[in-house]
């Protein structure tokens, strides 16, 4: 009971700061997802292309990104790039998250594209479509739809992973929690509260995703 009371106190004392920080979390997640989707599509296309060189580039990218911790990538980008161009923590973090997600999203897209029954390609070929036409008109629309559930999952992971950019001083939710906890000496309660923010965001997102999936299903 005592704990609940302190949690509530901490919540009431911190929500102005947390709401502001939440906005930054959402912004950085949004930028990361847009970049990640663009990179993902690009590398998925390279991976299924018939060019050995493009395939190799995509494989190297995916291997390196999946094989190293996100926090290392964030640090590398922040300290690596800022020696060349001036980049705010926000943008360094968003780009790092985008590149990171690109590798996973590329695999999601590749899997979805290759999962489309080869009869679809054969049917479109037999009607005289070129490889590009059949990709654009027949395979992609179906693959995109099939990617939505795993993409949603990836989006949730990104939202939570964005907390790691606290390490380069981006004032997002987790960074804010650190700062508050250092001031109010109520670490347990503060981290419980910030966990609650993430939980609520994820639940809202999950709900929206389910609504969208149902809508797609009805349309078909």
């Amino acid at each position: 009971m005592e704990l609940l009371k302190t949690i509530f106190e901490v919540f009431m004392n911190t929500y102005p700061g947390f709401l502001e920080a939440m906005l930054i979390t959402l912004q950085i997640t949004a930028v990361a997802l847009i970049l990640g989707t663009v990179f993902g599509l690009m590398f998925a296309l390279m991976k299924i292309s018939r060019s050995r060189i493009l395939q190799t580039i995509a494989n190297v990218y995916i291997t390196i990104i999946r094989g190293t911790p996100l926090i290392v990538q964030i640090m590398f980008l922040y300290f690596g790039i800022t020696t060349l161009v001036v980049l705010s923590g926000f943008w360094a973090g968003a780009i790092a998250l985008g590149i990171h997600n690109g590798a996973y999203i590329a695999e999601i897209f590749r899997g979805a594209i290759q999962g489309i029954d080869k009869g679809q390609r054969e049917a479109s070929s037999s009607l005289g479509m070129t490889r590009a036409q059949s990709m654009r008109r027949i395979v992609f629309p179906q693959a995109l739809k099939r990617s939505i559930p795993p993409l949603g999952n990836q989006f949730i992971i990104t939202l939570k992973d964005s907390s790691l950019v606290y390490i380069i001083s981006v004032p997002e939710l987790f960074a804010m929690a650190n700062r508050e906890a250092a001031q109010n000496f109520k670490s347990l309660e503060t981290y419980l509260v910030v966990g609650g923010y993430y939980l609520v965001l994820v639940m809202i997102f999950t709900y929206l995703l389910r609504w969208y999936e149902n809508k797609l299903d009805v349309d078909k």
Partner: protein
Amino acid sequence: MLKGSNIHKSFGDLEVLKGIDLEVAPSEVVVLVGVSGSGKSTLLRCFNFLEHINQGTIEIDGHEVNPKKDKLSKIRAEVGMVFQHFNLFPHMTVLENVIEAPIIVKKMKKEDAIVLGKQLLEKVGLSDKADVYPSKLSGGQKQRVAIARSLAMEPKVLLFDEPTSALDPELVGEVLEVMQQLALEGMTMIVVTHEMKFARNVANRIIMLDEGRIIESADPETFFGNPTHERTKQFIKLVD
């Protein structure tokens, strides 16, 4: 119309077609039969260049196709194919399935394509299903849509790869009826099928494949009444 000479096709070490010579005349209906693994589906797929032959030549309308130089998409547009598993596009309505290739490949105007598409759907008896998605159709209806979709490209030859093998028995008739109608209208067709009644009634010629070779080629009456090859006799006993 369509002529294959000395066609050889191997998958790895397995030689599936061992020198096939087959010429199909305009408006002719040729039925290919044979036990499973005899190479009949592979032969059909070679004619549509879904498989690349290892040796031999294929001529379409007197033009010898060179898969390296010719644009295969152009040639495939002239040779329609109906698949065992229909392969309709699930993300498009029935009408969209039919008009897709004319619009994308032939650059036909959408209004014109819709007129054509509706005519073809009427022909296969599915006018009322134009705006429905394929998932709502029975197997027989799906296959009739697939036929309409092939016809929309106005192919010179139509290839059927076991078009009724995936259907429930009660749905086979409606598809065969459409095919018979097409044959009557003079469509050139090569049909791989196990429907012997269809072969007997519709085919101009029945060809028996065995282990990658043509062992019998005759009109239906001779084929069923007086086959020369021992394997053909066995086959007819099995299916009749």
